[in-house]
């Protein structure tokens, strides 16, 4: 087999002495390259932890680890390679294992290798070095839903604080101003603040600027400087484009001609082409005004009022140059008209300051809360991790990481955010080329689609020049361009190259973060390449045959999928990829209608599924007896349906609450009685058991699973079970709070895979979810998707300047009560929209490159005389422009096609359940009983026993210590020091002052006992047959064992004595005899049990065992008869 065309590049990428920047298009096998480099590095480093591989998702980490460890384990077990490529890898793996003989286990253990997500790595740093990270130790990272809760609490706290401030306080004024600007919509203001807190890393320097600059003037200057940078970016682009036009090239002559003809515009047009500084904007605007019309076209009609030309200019030699201005240059020129000049009032700086003041307050409150709760969100985590690495040097890293990192590999580098980029820079601080430390970044800028997660594709491009290191210049990276595409068939690759290379990604605009397109080549190139077009474009519009184009598209899609399944070989897998979820239900219903099972990945929110809605209402009803709507929903669910007639009857019943009305109705209506009976199972358990448990039980009691299965199939039941799992997982034990958490949790939970779709070859998902996957056949409907949402103005815009610094810019939306957008806002909107379109093109690239063999494109258009017209700035528009300008045989286009008619598949037979296997619980070998428990008359035994002439706890402590002294006396013959007794009392919880006094009392008491004959005889150590604290067990009855510790046991010939020491005394006014009688009665069951146990243990008759109480307080023995 021939080698791939980029073989040399691939080999270079494995040169582990060099740092690389690898651009790897879709299907080029970049993960394998990373794995190969990782393994190769392993055989050279001093310790495996000197290599750090970073990616963005746990999924990618899992994949990389599985591959690396898989290869190492395979090499370890000496298994044979399955391919040439694998043979080489195994060879390296073997070397690595030999090289790290001492650490072999690390290589074989996925946990042992440093393959992490950025966040995982950040967390490692922060956990290890909390002080450097400025984060409390043991902080944990918040899940998104938890973050929302903390954020909500913080906003409440902030609002509370602000309202407690005097009216003139800056924050209060800012709050009120902002609120009014939003037409007094507090929720809108709160959303805006929350959003900015989440993005605080993007504009932290502005917050700092506002805090540190002495006056708003400087802040304004800083913003203006940045705005100027943006404008200059646009000027540069326009200038470069214009200079290539015939007019641009001969501008001086053109101007002289106008001057000569005394054209009015000669007064305001510049004599020479201006530079591209912000101050040159006016001159450029003049050029634009003269040459272009309002709608972005070259001026066709000219005259004194049309561009300021002289009257007969249109007939003159230069007119053609004006009319023939190329479209792109014209557009760029025209776009300049709207840009703000350096003297324009860019934005209402006070308003902006208001917002920043408020957000700064919110950030402070939020971060304080996070610190107090020892939690971090992802932004906080990244910022903290950066702090650990310091601005200047990463040397401290050595103090908290066990091994110095020598090699860094970064996957999907195009998705790097600015903080992550800084992190990489700081990790490399002090590195120099040739010092045996390397960086290897790999990615595909065309697949950068995570701007919403703060990815900045421009960083990928910037990194081509190397990694800028603070105070050190650039750490150079060798650029490698991969080209071979192992995934898709050649015609598909060719078409993709053409679409993007010639149209969609031709002429990339730097300001909008558009990236240059690099073509790929199919490898291996099969001999028998298919000749038929592999790309099918299907356009739908309203006409006589079609009343609803979206439905027609969905129907066509379903039928074609079915046809593909029938015609293509078994094992063909199909991906239906969507840009958004908008029409998901439409496609899904069409597919289901003809009986096709589909695996929907993160498409359907579980909370929106009807059966789940009812379970949700049940949880609500059980939690909130006053939520009438939830209660009525409960009786209108699939498992408890009552009709409108009965509803009316119940509504007219007297109680106010529906929960009570239903209770009453149950007495008269059996159908409600059934429901109430089930609810009654749950009602008393709400607040005691978990809400999920209660809901589950009521649901089951109402035959819920059956009803759901009957109407919604197995899928419905699976959804319900997932709902219950989620409910269980967020249980707080306070039902109202559980319910509130549930709302947040459900936001991000998608319906699980349908059991019917377990073995389907059809996957339906968003393009984002499909990243990293591939399919034989890809369907890409909804090409009429418009990435630029039409409609209202967001309240603020935050964008990075296109300058290399990428500093943030922020501008305020119009005052909702009156306003028009400000110039700065319009500028940022243009930037934002341009970037959105750039990303949408990349998303289209990702979608198209998922296909291995075939691609079905479809979308809605308008039917015009000139043919179908796609919505502006939609993927369909790009494709149609391309097909119109570049005739290609690789694509076949159909208008309003009708898919092959397919009869719905017969519903599957339900497989019955087999007989359940029996299962029985196991009897316990015995029950355990402790006789001391026999005296516990209530839960509050320790409080209510008679031992109390002093506080209950003290009595108990006194007892414990006296027993211990007697035990010591028996073993040592010596009484402990009073100080020791006092210390022991304190150790048990008595306060030291009291302990000293009590210790003396106890010591005196025991000394008195020692003088008492019975006690003296008992503890006579010359008679050996005594046992203190004697633990025994005995069979009380078959299956019951008693266990106890007897205070003192003494053998006296064939008699045995059991002595239970009591340290309590009679209450004031109570006689000793009465007290003893009472105590004897009280302890009788326990003592009798001891008697029985000892008799069994000694194998004697109970009559031989004498038992009684010894009262240490007044030294009296009382035998129980």
């Amino acid at each position, binding site marked *: 087999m021939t080698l791939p065309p980029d073989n040399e590049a691939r080999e270079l990428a494995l040169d582990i002495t060099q740092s690389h920047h690898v651009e790897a298009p879709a299907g080029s096998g970049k993960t394998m390259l990373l794995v190969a480099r990782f393994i190769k590095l392993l055989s050279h480093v001093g310790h495996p932890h000197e290599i750090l591989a970073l990616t963005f998702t746990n999924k990618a980490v899992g994949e990389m680890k599985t591959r690396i460890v898989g290869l190492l384990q395979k090499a370890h077990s000496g298994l044979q390679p399955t391919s040439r490529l694998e043979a080489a890898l195994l060879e390296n793996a073997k070397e690595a294992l030999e090289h790290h003989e001492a650490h072999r286990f*690390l290589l074989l253990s996925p*946990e042992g290798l440093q393959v992490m997500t950025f966040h995982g790595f950040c967390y490692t740093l922060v956990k290890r070095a909390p002080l450097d990270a400025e984060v409390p130790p043991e902080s944990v990272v918040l899940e998104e839903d938890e973050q929302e809760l903390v954020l909500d609490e913080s906003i409440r706290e902030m609002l509370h604080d602000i309202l407690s401030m005097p009216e003139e306080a800056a924050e209060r004024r800012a709050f009120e101003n902002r609120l009014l600007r939003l037409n007094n919509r507090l929720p809108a203001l709160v959303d805006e603040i929350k959003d900015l807190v989440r993005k605080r890393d993007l504009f932290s320097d502005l917050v700092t600027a506002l805090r540190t600059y002495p006056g708003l003037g400087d802040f304004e200057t800083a913003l203006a400087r940045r705005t100027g940078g943006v404008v200059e970016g646009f000027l540069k682009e326009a200038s470069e484009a214009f200079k290539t036009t015939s007019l641009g090239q001969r501008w001086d002559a053109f101007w002289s001609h106008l001057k000569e003809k005394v054209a009015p515009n000669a007064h305001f047009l510049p004599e020479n082409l201006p530079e591209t500084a912000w101050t040159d904007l006016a001159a450029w605007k003049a050029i634009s005004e003269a040459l272009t019309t309002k709608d972005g076209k070259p001026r066709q009609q000219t005259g004194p009022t049309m561009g300021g030309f002289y009257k007969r200019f249109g007939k003159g030699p230069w007119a053609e140059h004006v009319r023939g201005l190329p479209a792109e240059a014209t557009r760029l020129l025209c776009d300049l008209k709207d840009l703000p000049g350096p003297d324009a009032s860019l934005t209402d700086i006070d308003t902006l300051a208001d917002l920043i003041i408020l957000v700064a307050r919110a950030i402070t409150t939020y971060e304080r809360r996070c610190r107090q709760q020892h939690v971090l969100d992802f932004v906080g985590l990244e910022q903290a991790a950066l702090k650990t690495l310091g601005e200047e040097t990463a040397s401290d890293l050595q103090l908290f990481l066990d091994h110095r990192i020598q090699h860094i590999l970064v996957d999907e580098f195009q998705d790097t955010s600015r903080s992550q980029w800084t992190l990489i820079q700081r990790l490399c601080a002090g590195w120099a080329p040739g010092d045996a430390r390397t960086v290897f970044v790999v990615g595909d800028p065309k697949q950068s689609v995570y701007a919403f997660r703060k990815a900045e594709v421009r960083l990928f491009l910037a990194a081509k020049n190397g990694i800028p290191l603070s105070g050190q210049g650039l750490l150079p990276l060798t650029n490698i361009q991969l080209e071979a595409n192992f995934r898709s068939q050649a015609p598909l690759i060719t078409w993709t190259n053409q679409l993007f290379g010639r149209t969609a990604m031709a002429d990339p605009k730097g300001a909008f973060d558009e990236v240059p397109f690099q073509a790929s080549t199919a490898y291996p190139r099969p001999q028998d390449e298919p000749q038929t077009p592999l790309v099918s474009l299907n356009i739908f519009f309203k006409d006589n045959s079609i009343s609803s184009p979206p439905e027609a598209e969905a129907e066509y899609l379903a039928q074609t999928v079915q046809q593909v399944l029938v015609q293509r070989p078994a094992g063909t897998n199909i991906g239906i990829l969507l840009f958004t979820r908008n029409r998901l239900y439409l496609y899904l219903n069409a597919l289901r209608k003809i009986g096709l099972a589909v695996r929907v990945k993160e498409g359907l929110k579980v909370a929106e599924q009807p059966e789940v809605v009812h379970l949700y209402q049940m949880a609500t009803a059980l939690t909130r007896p006053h939520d009438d709507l939830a209660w009525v*929903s409960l009786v209108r669910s699939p498992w408890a349906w009552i*009709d409108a007639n009965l509803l009316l009857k119940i509504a007219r019943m007297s109680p106010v609450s529906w929960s009570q009305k239903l209770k009453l109705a149950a007495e008269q209506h059996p159908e409600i009685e059934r429901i109430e009976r089930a609810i009654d199972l749950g009602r008393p358990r709400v607040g005691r058991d978990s809400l999920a448990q209660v809901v589950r039980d009521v649901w089951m009691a109402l035959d819920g699973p059956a009803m759901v299965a009957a109407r919604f199939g197995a899928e419905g039941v699976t959804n319900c079970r997932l709902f219950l799992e989620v409910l269980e997982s967020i249980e707080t034990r306070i039902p109202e709070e559980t319910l509130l958490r549930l709302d947040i949790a459900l936001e991000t939970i998608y319906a699980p895979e349908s059991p019917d779709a377990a073995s389907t070859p059809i996957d339906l998902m968003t393009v984002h979810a499909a990243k990293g996957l591939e399919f034989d056949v890809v369907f890409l409907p909804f090409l009429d998707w418009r990435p630029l949402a039409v409609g209202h103005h967001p309240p603020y815009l935050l964008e990075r300047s296109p300058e290399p610094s990428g500093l943030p810019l922020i501008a305020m939306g119009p005052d909702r*009560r009156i306003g028009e957008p400000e110039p700065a806002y319009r500028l940022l909107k243009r930037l934002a929209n341009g970037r959105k379109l750039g990303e949408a093109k990349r998303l289209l690239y990702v979608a198209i490159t998922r296909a291995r063999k075939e691609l079905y494109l479809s979308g809605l258009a308008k039917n015009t005389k000139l043919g179908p017209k796609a919505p502006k700035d939609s993927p369909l528009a790009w494709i149609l422009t391309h097909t119109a300008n570049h005739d290609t045989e690789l694509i076949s286009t159909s208008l309003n096609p009708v898919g092959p008619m397919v009869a719905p598949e017969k519903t599957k037979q339900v497989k019955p359940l087999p007989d359940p296997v029996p299962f029985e619980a196991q009897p316990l070998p015995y029950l355990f009983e402790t006789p001391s428990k026999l005296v516990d008359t209530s839960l509050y035994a320790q409080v209510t026993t008679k031992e109390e002439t002093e506080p209950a706890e003290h009595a108990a402590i006194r007892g414990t210590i006296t027993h211990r002294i007697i035990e010591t006396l028996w073993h040592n013959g010596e009484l402990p020091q009073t100080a020791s007794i006092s210390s022991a009392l304190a*150790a048990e919880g008595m306060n030291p002052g009291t302990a000293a006094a009590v210790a003396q009392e106890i010591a005196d008491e025991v000394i008195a006992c020692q003088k008492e004959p019975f006690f003296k005889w008992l503890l006579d150590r010359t008679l050996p047959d005594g046992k203190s604290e004697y633990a025994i067990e005995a069979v009380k009855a078959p299956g019951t064992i008693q266990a106890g510790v007897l205070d003192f046991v003494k053998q006296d010939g064939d008699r045995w004595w059991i002595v239970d020491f009591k340290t309590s005394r009679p209450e004031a006014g109570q006689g000793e005899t009465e007290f003893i009688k009472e105590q004897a009665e009280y302890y009788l069951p326990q003592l009798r049990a001891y008697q029985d146990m000892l008799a069994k243990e000694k194998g004697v008759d109970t009559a031989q065992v004498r038992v009684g109480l010894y009262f240490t307080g007044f030294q009296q023995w009382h035998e129980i008869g």
Partner: protein
Amino acid sequence: MVYQNNKGFQNALLSVCQPGTLTLTSGGRLARHLKHQYRASEMATGKMGWPSPDILTLNAWSLEAWNMTWSLIRPLSHLSCLALWKEASSRIPPPEMFLPDLKLFQALDETYTVLIRHGLPTGGSSAPATPLIQWRQEIMQTFEAMAMDLKGFHPALLPVHLTQAIIAGTVRLPAAIVLAAFEAPAPIEEALFDSLASVCPVRRFDLPAGTPEKINGVVMPSRTQEVAWLTQQLVMDAQTVPLNRIGVVVPDIETYIPYITQAFGETMEVPLDQTLSSHNISIGTLLVERSLVQAGLLPLRFWTQGEPRTLLLSMLLSPYYGLWAATGRDRIARADCVWRAHGLDAGLSSLLHVLLSQSPGLFALLNSEEQTLEQALGVFMQTPARTGAEWVHILERFWEAVGFPVISDEADTGAWQRLRSILHCIREDLKTADMSLGDFMGVLHHLLSEELVHIRGSEEAGIQVLGLIESRGLSFEKLYVLGLSDGSLPRPVRPLPFLDMWERHKVRGATAESQYTFAQEAFRHLLACAPDITLTRPAEESAEPLAPSPFWAEAVAEETRHTVDLWNAPDRVWARAAWLQQAKKGLERTAVFPPADPPVEGDLLPETLSVSQLAIAFVCPFRFYVQAVLNLFPLDELILGISPLERGNRLHKVLALFTNRCRDKGLAGKKDRPAMEALLETCSDEALVSDCGEGSYTGKDALGRHSWGMERCRWMGETKGVLVPGLLTQWLDLELQRLDEGWRWLFEESSFEGLTSPEWPFSISGRIDRIDYHKENGLILWDYKSGEHPSRAAVLEHLADPQIPAYVQAAKERRIAGFEKELESKIHISGGYITLKTPSAVTHKELITKGGVWDQVLKKWKKAVASLGKRLASGEFRAEPYPVSDYIGQEKACQYCRYGPLCGRNEAG
């Protein structure tokens, strides 16, 4: 001694467990099991009684032995240690970024324990120290000095002190000692054992490394599948193997517990009889996670979290509070309706105040005979700082006053006892230093989070599910080891931030190497637990691949892959699950859901419908049925700030007051703008005065009041800063223009009724926001809108909004009293909307201006009302947005409708 497996290990141990011999084990589970074995063997010989064998964990014995030395110094309690760390941190303050809080003290305490256990100096090493390490060293020295002052020491030091005592001969020792399962003792334990061996005979029994007869490796697609498969195996095994002889070891047990609990609950009988056990899960739940405990904490949380409505409501509805439980949740819960209606979300006094004024009956339900709720809860707020013991006292008194806790079962009893004992500890250990309520809550919460409560089950009966540590030394016939994937064995490295690198290399678990060594040992011992072992792992979780643990490849020669498909390949074990049985039965039939509602019978419609009710019926008959016939409404949602409904109501009120007064005062005629503006301000203030507050804008909390203040600003315009016209001042200007044009404000809020037609089953009543008159242009009937208004086409062509046509019809029929004079001539009558959404978009939109004709529209409209009326009267309230659905779109009609779960529309698709 060498044994093949744990069975041999246990037998060997039991053979030396004689009276007089002390057996020390590394873990409690092994000690209990050995005792059980001993007991069983005694019984097997027919004995009826025996001395308890002396088998103890090392920790338990150490404490006992220490107590018997009567030393003057003592180990401090955990709480005392925390209090000492706090005290120490006030002397050696932590770095600025660290809050001197419980978590910090806890972390220090753990680090201290680790250092001591490993025999490392707490005060520092020779390695260069970072500021953090330096601080740690200083604070630990201070801690030790302070402990000494208290004649105490950290409990981690017990083995050290005990060792010294043994050497000094002050510890009473048994005739012989057996050490069980101490293969890798910590350095201080090793020293202790050495000292023991120097004074009495000591025998060591280390755990064996196992080589099971059979070992399988099973890979399942996910954790859920893994547990489903395990469950199948267990229930099948149970047919032949006694349950307690089957073990399930789960290294990452916390992750698996929810899956296991659910799957076992669904497939195995959970016996009600306490003498039976189906399975036993070794770790319990945290005490803090028990319902009783959470309920008990509510009063504290209420105060520390800003007196939120939700927590007060939760307390009132909690079954654990006897005082309110007796009254009935259903009744008490209605208090929340009042709070929601008044937009109140926090503040005890506001919440109670509004209840007292709006629903005294409900208010009375909250108070006991002895004291009001405010008094009862108020005790927490009387003094800001008290000792822990005092807080405990206050809390207990509160509980007593409100009948907490109402205990319902054994689990509650257990939780309550544990809670009380924790309070007891606080009472004993925190008697001196003052703390805030928040601090008290923090300490209590911390202690409750440390405490595990065992879920019912027996260690000697039922399938045993345990963690890695508990499994040490146990023996089973069959063993399953779950979740052998990345991160479970070995566990991730412990961060231990207070240790320097040198120390970390000495400490177990602080480096990858030591974690691996530990895991390897543990895995080898695990293999000694049974002759037949199955290892399982999930291939992925949440679609993320999980690599296997390194021991997987070591132990599994060939892995097998399975899936459990309950739906398509049901098995006999899962056939036991009640939900599956029900679901399968359901699958066999097909249900139509929702079933169509039959026509509702009876006297349904009121004689008169208001125009707004009619408008609802136009949008959707079912919604009309629910709202107008059943009178059922959703709970009011609490919106931050002002609800749109309330905003509209108040605006209407100002406008009505204003035009009315203007007319009365003759201001309208004079067009005296300053006076009118002044009047507008007065009317605004009047409209904003609360229904139940005390002269404030509304009865709401501070935020609500402030929002209304802002609303007034929005209405009247900003007086400071940038001058933005007010909504109402802008409106006034437009009205003045109209007055200039010759319009007059005739009436506001004019009611009409009795509008009917022979084809209508009801008559219509309504109230017109305002009526204007112009000599030439006629009458206009206005409706104020504080949001968007319907388009002309919506009203005139699609009849989507019946309001204006109803007004015009009523006027034409002379049903609006008061302007007969104006109606005398054949005058143009029209209607329209005055929109007041933003100052820049205040508009007067007349639907048909003079010259246009209403007759056609009204005819069509009357017909539409007739057809709708007929339908409603016949009891047809189908959930079909009607008759204008095509125009507004069903989607849109349903989008903001809260009755979706009732009407079944969601299900219909």
